[in-house]
């Protein structure tokens, strides 16, 4: 178990170095409600893609990203009320990967809630993940906000149960982002019925925050920046005054507003993905509102990755991105414009060259 011991040692080293450092890369934003006693923050870590090589060896690069997010999250003052992990803890859903990821996450102080990602799911359909982290979809209430967690990365039963000779092959086929043999993500009938039932009991003035792995909006089908039944899920959320959907999977900053629903993506701790417009053969619909993250510099292996903490100011989600090797970003809900916007770069004239993707 050399790797795990090393990880522990390095983790302590990283945390120590950060604690001593005079400039912490962290500033704090609180959840602002009318009642200040109700203010709170939570942290969001996602897409670690812990990748098993062999025996006790894991891809060092991805390990480092997650270890750093955990160390920095623990430095937040005041402490976040809880931590979300947004899915894709593993690369190929194996026990060694999920165990190794869980071991790194176990250093987090406080409660952690998990979202299922396709890289966690398609080997054993979430069986081992459930043993470690609990049910695949659920809801909870915290200080006046109703939180819902969906497993949005399911797909057609034919694809899941009939198409592939082995579970390993099924996992590999879904793991390739650009694999044409893959299949579109969906929440599915069973969960949508559960969601309707869950939301029926909630007052329509209650702020609702939905966590999913894939975007509950349609951006680019070719890379599954997409959920097939997104429109039907949005319809269930439509009666509420304030709704935020927060998703992982895309490894980049995206945000949008559709009616009453604000959409925000979170960053990955593993590696960044290109914006779909960087694929010359693709037709895609990146929300016009989104000011992209900077183009990644591959020579800094942690560039264009990071984690975030979230402020649900008066029921709307504000995202504070901690970006390794890069300037932090804040995407905040604008109460007058009724949509999320970047605190610095939203105006066309305020944008910088590295935000141009081609």
């Amino acid at each position, binding site marked *: 178990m050399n790797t795990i011991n090393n990880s522990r040692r390095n983790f302590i080293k990283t945390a120590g170095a950060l604690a001593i450092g005079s400039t912490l890369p962290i500033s704090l934003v609180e959840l602002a409600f009318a009642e200040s006693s109700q203010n709170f923050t939570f942290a969001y870590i996602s897409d670690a893609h812990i990748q098993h090589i062999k025996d006790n060896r894991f891809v060092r690069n991805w390990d480092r990203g997650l270890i750093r997010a955990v160390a920095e999250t623990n430095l937040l003052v005041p402490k976040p009320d809880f931590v979300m992990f947004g899915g894709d803890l593993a690369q190929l859903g194996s026990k060694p990967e999920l165990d190794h990821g869980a071991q790194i996450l176990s250093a987090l102080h406080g409660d952690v809630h998990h979202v299922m990602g396709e890289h966690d799911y398609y080997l054993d359909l979430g069986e081992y993940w459930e043993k470690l982290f609990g049910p695949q979809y659920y809801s909870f209430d915290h200080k006046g906000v109703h939180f819902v967690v969906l497993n949005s990365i399911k797909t057609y039963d034919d694809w899941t149960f009939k198409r592939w000779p082995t579970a390993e092959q099924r996992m590999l086929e879904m793991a390739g982002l*650009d694999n044409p043999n893959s299949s579109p993500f969906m929440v599915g009938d069973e969960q949508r019925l559960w969601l309707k039932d869950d939301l029926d009991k909630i007052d329509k003035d209650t702020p609702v925050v939905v966590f999913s792995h894939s975007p509950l909006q349609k951006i680019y089908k070719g890379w599954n920046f997409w959920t097939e039944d997104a429109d039907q899920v949005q319809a269930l959320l439509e009666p509420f005054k304030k709704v935020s959907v927060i998703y992982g999977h895309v490894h980049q900053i995206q945000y949008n507003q559709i009616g009453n629903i604000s959409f925000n993506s979170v960053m990955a701790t593993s590696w960044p993905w290109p914006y779909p417009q960087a694929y010359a053969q693709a037709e895609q619909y990146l929300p016009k509102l989104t000011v992209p993250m900077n183009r990644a510099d591959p020579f800094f292996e942690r560039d264009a990755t990071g984690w975030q903490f979230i402020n649900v100011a008066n029921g709307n989600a504000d995202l504070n991105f901690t970006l390794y090797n890069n300037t932090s970003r804040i995407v905040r809900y604008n109460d007058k414009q009724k949509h999320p916007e970047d605190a610095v770069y939203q105006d066309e004239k305020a944008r910088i060259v590295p935000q141009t993707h081609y």
Partner: protein
Amino acid sequence: MSTYQKIAMTLCLAFAATGSALADEFTEADVQRWQQQFMSVVGEGRELWTSPKLGTNGVACAQCHPNAANTHPETYPKFQKQLGRVIPLWEMINWCLKNPLEGQPLAADDPKMIALQAYVTYERRGVKLEPGKH
């Protein structure tokens, strides 16, 4: 007739005798055949691009570059600020093989390197050449 002319004449006769094609004359079938040759190398490149075996840690090129996006073959050769000089695409591919993939670099004329470049460039077809662009 000079010696050179004699040799040239002999060569011409030799080619005529073996029925070799004339330069600059090719058919639609030839064009299709050449395209198929190219596409089969593109296919090999796609295999390598998505393969965990190119490096040593199981990481594949496609993990960060789905459909070879964000590789920008149309901008090479270009000044790579991190290396401090102008490089062709294959040197940047080797940088990736050595670093994120923790593997060995390939020779410039290695069929695998040619296949990788064929695939990357094919995915970028239709985009205008902008050598040097950052």
